[in-house]
């Protein structure tokens, strides 16, 4: 699946959200880099 790279702001938000997880785990690697359609990303509203 071709996905645009995360912007710097998105990357910062994501790093904060994933602060307490071990990013070396294969599942967390996938979830950290995952991008779903924008309408389901409620993070902007929070």
């Amino acid at each position, binding site marked *: *699946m071709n996905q645009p790279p995360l912007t710097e702001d998105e990357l910062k938000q994501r790093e*904060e*959200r*994933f*602060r*307490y*997880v*071990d990013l070396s*785990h*294969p*599942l*967390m*690697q*996938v*979830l*950290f880099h*995952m991008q*779903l*359609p924008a*309408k*389901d*990303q*409620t*993070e902007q509203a*929070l």
Partner: protein
Amino acid sequence: MTLTAEALVNKSLDLVSPPNTYIQLNKLIQDPDSAIDDISAVINTDPALATRLLRIVNSPFYGFPSQINTISRAITIIGTRELTHLVLATSVINAFKGIPSSLINMDEFWRHSFATAITAQLLAEECGQHATERFFIAGLLHNIGSLVLYQSMPELAGEAIRSAEFGHEVLFKAEQRVIGFAHTDVGYALAHAWHLPHSLQEVARYHHSPSEAEDFPIDVAIVHIADVLVSSVPFGHSGDNHVPPLDPAAWELLALNEVQMPMLLQQVSERIDLLSSVMLNQE
């Protein structure tokens, strides 16, 4: 005297009545002599509940091709257990309607819970589990203890939320430090006091520490993973902006492939609005 989770729940039972219709239905389900008419009769004693249930089963979330006009018909189509779970879900949503929006956005709280419910059921299907509707209700109610905290001790709960948001700890650890116990302890105490099934009690208690689960390790592991997946997107907001720490043993127990998870979450994103819409508009 130090307040315990059990004491808090006992105090809260005056404010939050037990889901009596669900408790009656649960007894009937376990009675081999009970019939659909018996179950319909119990639900129909509460016309508001019956109306809410019919609205839910006729919603686009279920997408049945023809109108379902009676509780008996709903039972025939979606099954006794699933309808009973809907009774429990709607009862809990109604029971905790008084939580102040200044503390937490409840629509976002429920969105997180609904997404966890859908995700848990999809994960259970991926794992080859039977009777997967029980995972839906387990996901939906995993944070039931948070509701008691928000309703009964909003100031301390708010302090824990702010500590998790601006400090350096996940919410359940902030709750332990600020309040003395976490939403997991309260969730277990409430589920126990309400005589909910033991599997739901274990999920409420151990969804952040699934390796401690005693009798339902698969149920707890599935809801633990669902919570991690949902918080990663995120769908909604449970009070914590952070993804809870993953227990690798729970992931290994389920023997799933991580590469499949984005596709599974895509399915959740296609269903979550339909579920939130019908469950949160119950008037």
